[in-house]
């Protein structure tokens, strides 16, 4: 997550100035490191941890993706690109990819819209603001398993609180977990809700860092609150939005697993596969339930490629639209 750092400082120009002032000094300071090896030595602990827990498994995964392997049986048969071909020509996998893209799109757009709105409201100096903020942030503190169980009980079609309420008021009892589109919407909503806390914390911080002068100037110029939000606040929040879009995409791609596993187990079936079976859940099913370790490694490689593409896109096109200046 260290790839994109949001800049909270209200006056980046000042910082840049300081940085420029310090630049020549930094060159002189170079002598602080005696010899070429000291920096590497200091980096060693980080590199070791990355190597053992990230790079080595990643290389193993890359290798495993061209084998047929079952981790329990312990076999490894070289199959070349067969795993990739099977996956990429499988209608099930096509559907899973499509579902994942729709899911990620919805989660990111809805999640950011809601959290920016809620953060804006929660940043207002009203009585009890601190309590509101606490309540808004708290879903993030729940583990996905607990959140999933909570939603499962709430949306049990016969005895869940939601249907008891809907049944008593309108005489309807929607089948939340086996009507494909309802189930999809439910998982999207639950994921958005689960991520709200994280997004709100960041947006609150960013909103509090917006310089008052700018807001006052806008007010004096006669901008309505609505205009102030859209024309002043939103552009000033764009570095934060840029950062959050990226982290939210990654969260929706990978962290959605826990919730899906408890709430729907990837179901209900729609077309070729369960409609809430997303890439990471499919990977889990194949790798850890069905023990198709080779095929799961292949999926991991494809997901890695997807994330790499996203990062490249973000850096290439994202930066242009981000407004850092005040």
């Amino acid at each position, binding site marked *: 997550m260290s790839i994109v750092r949001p800049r909270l400082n209200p006056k980046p120009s000042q910082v840049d100035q300081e940085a420029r002032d310090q630049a020549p000094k930094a060159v002189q300071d170079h002598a602080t490191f005696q010899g070429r090896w000291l920096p590497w030595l200091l980096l060693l602990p980080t590199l070791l941890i990355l190597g053992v827990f990230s790079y080595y498994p990643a290389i193993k995964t890359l290798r495993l993706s061209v084998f*047929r*392997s*079952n*981790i*329990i*049986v*312990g*076999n490894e*048969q070289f199959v070349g690109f067969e795993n990739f071909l099977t996956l990429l020509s499988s209608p099930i996998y096509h559907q899973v990819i499509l579902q994942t893209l729709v899911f990620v799109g919805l989660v990111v757009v809805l999640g950011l819209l809601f959290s920016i709105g809620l953060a804006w409201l929660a940043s207002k100096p009203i009585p009890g603001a601190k309590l509101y903020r606490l309540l808004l942030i708290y879903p993030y503190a729940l583990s996905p398993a607990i959140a999933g169980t909570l939603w*499962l009980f709430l949306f*049990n*079609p*016969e*005895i869940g609180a939601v249907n008891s309420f809907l049944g008593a008021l309108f005489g309807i009892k929607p*089948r*939340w*977990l*086996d*009507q494909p589109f309802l*189930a999809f919407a439910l998982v999207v909503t639950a994921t958005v809700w689960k991520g709200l806390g994280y997004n709100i914390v960041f947006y609150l911080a960013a909103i509090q860092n917006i310089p008052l002068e700018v807001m006052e100037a806008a007010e004096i110029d006669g901008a309505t609150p609505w205009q102030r939000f859209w024309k002043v606040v939103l552009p000033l929040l764009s570095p934060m939005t840029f950062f959050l879009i990226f982290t939210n995409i990654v969260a929706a791609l990978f962290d959605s697993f826990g919730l899906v596993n408890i*709430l*729907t*187990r990837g*179901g*209900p*079936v729609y077309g070729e596969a*369960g409609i809430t079976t997303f890439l990471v859940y499919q990977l889990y*099913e194949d790798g*850890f*339930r*069905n*023990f*198709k370790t080779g095929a799961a490694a292949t999926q991991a490689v494809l997901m890695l490629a997807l994330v790499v593409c996203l990062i490249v896109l973000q850096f290439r096109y994202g930066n242009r639209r981000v407004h850092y200046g005040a």
Partner: protein
Amino acid sequence: MKKYWIALPLALSFVASAQNMTVEFWHTFGDAKRGDWIQARADDYNKAHPGMTVVAVYKGISNETLQATVLAARQGKAPALVQVDGTSSQLALDSGIFQPVSGIKDVDFRDYIKPVVSYYTIGGKVNSLPFNSSSPVLYFNKDLMTKAGLDPKKPPTTFDAILKTCATFDAAKLGMKCIALTPFSWLFEQWMSEQNAQLLNNGNGRQARATASNVDSDAGRKIFGFYKDLNDKGYLTNTGKLADTVGTNAIFGNQKALMTINSTAGLGNLLDAAKQNGFKLGVGVLPIPDGSERNGVVIGGASLWVAKSAPKPEAETALDFALFMTNTENMASWHKLTGYYPVRTSSVNLLRKQGWFSSNPLQIVAFNQLLKTKPNIANAGALTGANIEMRTIIEQNIQKVLSGQGVSEVAKTTNEQINAALLEYNKNFK
């Protein structure tokens, strides 16, 4: 005399090494009730055998435990004793890290209930020691039965009888569904067995690796058809999540359904729910498809496997502890606590002598169902390493029937998908 001087240090060192013997037992029960029971048995054993320590460790759900065991075994650190789910028997065999318990020392298996031992006998060898075993039964709400004008003493025993019961119940308009039933492959497998139909070819995968499924058959279609009938007539409810028996139990426990079908291991919890919600619980035999004689249930649950890498004394201790944990008294207490079968005839006799069945008449239903099962290939259960995937396939296809697809079309698709999964698994051995 001289010889003693040589023998003494040897004997001492032997005692010393025996005193250090630690045997790890990895199990899959994370809940307090069952986990604590296992821990208590390990404590009992350790107290009775100074110098030996059985360490019981909860290692996550069955799949996680098996995977952890295999990975540990590859590093030469396998636990001596492991609980493996029946579904994963073939995988455990194919992993090659276990040894048949019958090869460690002579165990008298005559005391074990036959269908249970037969489930774990593969290629003529008893591979593992039966531990927690269960089968499905019909649970019903006696009060609701009476209210709807049905006789709670005569619960339905066939699919047709269920439909008839439901018709009567529906007509009484009590504002709830007739049966809480989730798409659950375990029940599908039971119903194949009850019709004496093998789920997989090659003797249910017991003579050679299974290569084809038998789901696209009369027997299979009857089961899909049952789900369809119940659903079309509006008798059926569940949470919508696959294999969500926790959900159907909750629906039944909250009196939102007249009946449910679930494992005998759920009896304890359902009795609690019935008490809490103020209704009388009834238990009946597993209702079966019409037109076939009861061929008996497939035993479900898990068994205890001994690692191949365990040195002889440790393997013996592991087995000794497993036998202690499943001895007559312990199995009786395990049964009382959980509703799992006491897998020994002597335990059943003990329970009978204690008057357990006359004071708890609900328990006897499940028993008779198991005792009446005459072991054959169909009720020995299907063996394949693709079992877990097969279960998902069956459950997804039941869901397709519930969402309106035709039975024969779904049976065909199910068969094709299972065959593909079997083919894929078997490729691991070419």
